[in-house]
């Protein structure tokens, strides 16, 4: 039995808190003090009449008339009833624990409106019945996960790409920017690409049997038939194929997209669920380019707002919005996280573009090499925070909430 580490060195004091990090596509939950979330559930719910389905198993089962919906918009919770259902599912059905017994830390995006923050406190105390609660900024947690109190957090997730400057663990709100040009936006580009190539995306669950075919040959698969599946469910299932494609095949060129250079790169094969397979060359790169140049690469038949900014422009804008004294420090402590940042070549591209944008400053990007640290940085930081001895004075207690009301969150969770 090892002795407890000296508090002065480690600074930890476990109070067995729970941490939930709700993202646009995944909600992570687990116990504070652990290094990865124990439970990762999709932030979606299925709705069929009055019945609500949450959790992987139910969401992916083909049910007639079940719509798949998201309770999130713009990175913030918009449908609280459903969000509580997902949280409750994660805690009681997957973590087998009672929220009543544990303090709860929840992360929020830096641009979360005050009304939603108050709602979060209400939900936590009144519906989940937690003894103590804290609402931490996701970007601050991500910076803590990389061991930095001062950082420029670049989070490219599924629905939102955001840039947040953090000074001593506090967000600079006026210099925080976010855009929609993230993972889901690439998905739309990919489906447009497949459409233009006349490739039909058949989700996995519809395949009964398939035969191997040569590259470019029509698929030979037997399909199952389902009745009454909703378009949103099919869309949800197709998104899984697109995610798979992104993870295995997509990449980012180290320089602004150039067809000649993209064609030099070796092509990569991708096999669709129905067995159809194809080599992808320049298409691997052109579909990710909207992350950096949204205006130059709009979706077919649509235009992009003239003020739209790619991720590098967001970073530049954010740095320039900060006081000049802080800039050098921020640029030297860039933390790159989020699932979409795992795209091959993404870090190099950002590094090169930032070096061009700030030639006089020393740029250093810290991007965790471990993919789970990249995807769950917000949760890991929350886990660190909630197990620190010095943090326990920050919790909003139940009694405090009853005395002050939900506005206590503005005072406490800065």
């Amino acid at each position, binding site marked *: 039995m090892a002795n407890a580490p000296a508090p002065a060195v480690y600074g930890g004091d476990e109070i067995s808190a729970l941490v939930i990090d709700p993202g646009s596509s995944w909600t992570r939950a687990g116990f504070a003090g652990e290094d990865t979330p124990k439970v990762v559930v999709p932030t979606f719910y299925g709705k069929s009449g009055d019945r609500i389905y949450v959790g992987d198993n139910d969401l992916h089962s083909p049910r007639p008339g079940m719509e798949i919906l998201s309770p999130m918009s713009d990175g913030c919770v918009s449908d609280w009833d459903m969000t509580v259902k997902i949280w409750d599912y994660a805690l009681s059905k997957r973590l087998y624990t009672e929220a009543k017994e544990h303090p709860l830390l929840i992360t929020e995006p830096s641009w979360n409106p005050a009304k939603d923050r108050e709602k979060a406190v209400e939900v936590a105390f009144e519906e989940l019945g937690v003894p103590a609660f804290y609402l931490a900024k996701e970007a601050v947690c991500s910076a803590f996960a990389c061991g930095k109190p001062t950082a420029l957090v670049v989070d490219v997730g599924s629905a939102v790409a955001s840039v947040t400057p953090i000074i001593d663990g506090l967000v600079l709100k006026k210099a925080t920017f976010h855009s929609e040009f993230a993972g889901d936006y690439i998905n739309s580009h990919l489906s447009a690409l497949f459409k233009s190539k006349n490739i039909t995306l058949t989700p996995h669950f519809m395949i009964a049997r398939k035969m191997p075919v040569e590259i470019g040959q029509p698929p030979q698969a037997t399909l199952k038939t389902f009745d009454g599946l909703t378009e949103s469910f099919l869309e949800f299932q197709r998104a899984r194929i697109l995610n798979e494609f992104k993870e295995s095949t997509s990449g980012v060129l180290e320089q602004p997209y150039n067809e000649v250079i993209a064609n030099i790169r070796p092509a990569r094969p991708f096999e669709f669920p129905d067995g159809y397979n194809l080599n992808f060359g320049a298409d691997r790169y052109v579909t990710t380019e909207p992350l950096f140049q949204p205006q130059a690469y709009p979706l077919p038949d649509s235009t992009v707002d003239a003020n739209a900014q790619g991720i590098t422009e967001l970073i530049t804008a954010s740095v320039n919005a900060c006081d000049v004294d802080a800039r050098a420090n921020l640029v030297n402590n860039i933390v790159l996280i989020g699932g979409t940042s795992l795209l091959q070549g993404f870090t190099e591209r950002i590094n090169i573009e930032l070096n061009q944008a700030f030639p006089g400053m020393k740029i250093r990007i810290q991007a965790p090499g471990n993919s789970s640290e990249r995807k769950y940085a917000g949760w890991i930081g929350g886990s660190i925070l909630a197990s620190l001895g010095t943090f326990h004075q920050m919790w909003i*207690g139940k009694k405090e909430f009853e005395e002050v009301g939900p506005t206590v969150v503005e005072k406490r969770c800065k």
Partner: protein
Amino acid sequence: MSSADIRDMLDLPSQVPAASRPPPAKRIKTDGKKLDGIHRELHNLLGENTPPVTVMQSKFKEKPNWMQKPSPWVWTKFKNPARGDDLELYHWVRGAPSNDEYPFAKFNKPVDVPTFSKEEYDKCLADTAWTSRETEYLFDLCREYDLRWLVVQDRYDYEPEENEPPSIRTLEDLKERYYFCCRKLMELRRDASGADWTPRDLELYNAMNFNKDKEIMRKQYLERLLSRSPAEIAEEERLILEYRRLQESSKKLVQDREELLRLLESPQTANTFAQYQSPQGLSQLAGNILASDKNRRRKGAPEAAAQGGQVARAVPGTPNGGAPPQAVTPQQAVQNGVHGTKQTPQPGRSAAAQAAATPAVSKAELAQSVTNKKVAKRVPPGQENLYGISYHDKLVQGVYLRSTKISTLKPTVQTKVASILAELGIAPKLAMPTAKVCDRYEALQQAINLLIETKKQVDKLDHEVKVSTSGNAVQESDA
């Protein structure tokens, strides 16, 4: 044999009482512990030294003691005194729960931000640009964010009342206001208490002297520094390198110049002539000259030629000083005579020597006659070659090859010279090293050396000209 034994033999009484005699040498004790793998004799040789460290490796991990009682950990509740409320949280504690204060509470350290009353505000903090409400708002923010100015400015969102002007505050405005108020409050409170400043207070007071204009200017400079274009940065680096190079070369130039000046400057007579006015002084001078002359000869002819003038100048100085002609000692006269004969090819020197020698009286005649004899024996000029005669200042003993006497240059220079010689089609080794050939060869070598030196200087100057013109061009293009 000790002194005690000698005393014993000579029947002297022993001085030292027996008790204070040094005890017989101790036998080296060995501890009884038997060491594995070392013979006892070998071990004894180690003496009292500690044996070298042997690494003992146990083969397996120690067996865990399953029967041991587990250390007791208790799930216990605690209160954090750093909190305002009495929220109770639970954590695991080893052993029995104690009533000690929560160990992390001591880290709760707020920053000391002063507060002020209405009277204090009216008395000294009033400002047309600020209202008391806004000042208080600022102080609250400072307290809340522990004077992290960047955050304070970020969260500064003051909603002015209806009759107030809208406030747009920069970071410098906020800092200036805060530090101004703090200083005023310190002054006010000191005046009220009548006590003197403590050094700590004074230091704090001076530290809070915030110069807004300077700060704004500093930030502007910083901004300019950070927003340099890559071309500007490259240019700057180039200039810095150039500057370093120039500095280096100017240092070298100064050194060279100093050396040159030292060489050019004739040795000055630092002392007055007065000391040479007495007979003793003169004889001493003559001795010095003789000695230095000998040294010079040993060093080699060219140097002597260069310094000949010095002697010539120094010697006539003496008669001018008013010393009687008799004062020239015979020794000096002889010496002068020798000069005259041996150094005939150096007219300046010999003339001077002669001038000095002429006043010398009968005692110097001996030397004079020797010179005359040598001159008489001399072959008429221009006919030396005919007879194969040559004159030498000094002959080296023994036989040697003439080619070995050709002076060598520094290795680096030598290679350059050699390459130029090769260009001219002259072999580095002379095929026929007659005296004449050797002389010419040496002269050629010297000339080449001079040429190389000159070329180097020209290149250097050329480069400097180029640099300064390019610098001018850049400046002009900037302008």
